[in-house]
């Protein structure tokens, strides 16, 4: 098991090159390559933009700002697939479901996207913890 940090080292997102999913996200079987672009000056909200499908993107946030105690444990198999050997290598991103307003906007805590910031290999990791909902209010 690798415990992950929720803090994102400042500026790390700007340096990320093409992110390669080692296995596709559920529902998007033939989408493997993404770029990560910050959408604001603070770098809180970012877009994970597909390089395989021009119109496809996901909004993502680092959990730290919103769910500071969130510390997903990544199973050994996924850690090996991503080449993760320490938590410092792992960037955790939550997929955002934009609601009508901020209050109805949710994030998926059950299946975070974990990126190895050294190799840019990534996966949407399905956690065992049933307490984590796929639709948790962003402002919890």
């Amino acid at each position: 098991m690798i415990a992950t940090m929720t803090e994102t080292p400042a500026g790390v997102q700007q340096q990320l090159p093409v992110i390669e999913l080692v296995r596709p996200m559920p529902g998007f079987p033939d989408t493997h390559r993404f770029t990560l672009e910050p959408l604001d000056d603070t770098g809180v909200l970012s877009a994970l933009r597909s390089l395989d499908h021009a119109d496809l993107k996901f909004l993502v946030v680092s959990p730290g700002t919103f769910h500071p105690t969130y510390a997903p444990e990544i199973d050994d198999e996924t850690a090996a697939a991503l080449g993760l050997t320490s938590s410092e290598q792992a960037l955790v991103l939550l997929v955002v479901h934009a609601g009508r307003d901020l209050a109805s906007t949710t994030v998926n805590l059950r299946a975070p996207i974990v990126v190895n910031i050294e190799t840019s290999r990534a996966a949407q990791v399905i956690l065992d913890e049933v307490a984590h909902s796929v639709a948790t209010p962003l402002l919890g």
Partner: protein
Amino acid sequence: MLVLSRRVGESVVVGDDVTITVLEVRGDVVRVGIDAPRSVRVHRAELLAELAASNTESASPSEDAVASLNEELTRALRKRS
């Protein structure tokens, strides 16, 4: 689809290294044990369906939605700090 009848305690083997055993049958609930290498990911089908639906709903929000979320978020975070 291959359909097999199995009793409690009996198994089916899938491929070379996945064994699924019926452990208990109680009413309409069947408990199964799955023996598989770690590289084989095993999930409840409805969880994968839920994640696929969640990803699909989250995918490609409109530019308007992104802009207003960004604006609201910036305001909310500024208020916090």
